[in-house]
């Protein structure tokens, strides 16, 4: 069970990208066009619930592309925020499903800056509560 990886699988299942093609897990040094997810800090346990913080970064073909990718993902996060969902298993990496998870968006889209090839990088933050 790796909640951030399971979340990428959920995005793939909802046609918001393809894992390892334009959805990357913890591979920020890759330099490819797409959306990256990274865990931030250690998971926080409160009672029986565990909170995982994450940030997503988008590097697009141009300055609009990356923004639009994150916009679609953020809209999807708001759509599922009010419900408890099951994060699907990731067969490629033998990651089991995460039941009763809540995805909470924490920010709007933020401009991080330009990368070395002058492509805009955008970010959003969120939490997975299991």
């Amino acid at each position, binding site marked *: 069970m790796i909640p951030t990886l399971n979340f990428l699988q959920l995005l793939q299942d909802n046609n918001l990208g393809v894992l390892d093609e334009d959805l990357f897990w913890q591979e920020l040094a890759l330099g490819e066009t797409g959306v990256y997810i990274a865990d931030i800090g250690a998971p926080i346990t409160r009672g029986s619930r565990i909170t995982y913080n994450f940030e997503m970064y988008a590097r697009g073909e141009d300055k609009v592309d990356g923004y639009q990718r994150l916009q679609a993902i953020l809209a999807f996060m708001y759509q599922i925020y009010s419900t408890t969902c099951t994060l699907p298993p990731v067969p490629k990496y033998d990651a089991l499903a995460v039941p009763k998870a809540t995805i909470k968006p924490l920010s709007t889209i933020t401009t*991080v800056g330009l990368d*070395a090839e002058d492509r805009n990088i955008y970010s959003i933050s969120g939490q997975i509560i299991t």
Partner: protein
Amino acid sequence: MGVASRMKQWVSGQVVLFDRVEEVMSGVVLMRGIITSPKKSRDLSNNGRVEMKDGHRTVKFGDDSVPYARIQELGGDTGRNYATHIIGKHYLQQSGDSVKKENPKKFVDMSL
């Protein structure tokens, strides 16, 4: 009858909270630094780390194995007769600035 002060517990709770906030903020600066850093060989990106110094966290890129981290950040002249001019990418500065401009409440929320 007296009132027991819980000031000590409250203070220690706040210390833990702000330590977590610092952990989250330094983690975000590091991740943003990695994604914006030059990636010719990926050595520079993979060299990023958070170090503890005097009880506080510092985001660092570069050491003996990646001595060019500083010139990639700040720019300058290098090579034979200083003929190669490198334009600073400011990958670490813009990562820190992007975190600084955000609402600190977000990082507190991520730490609770």
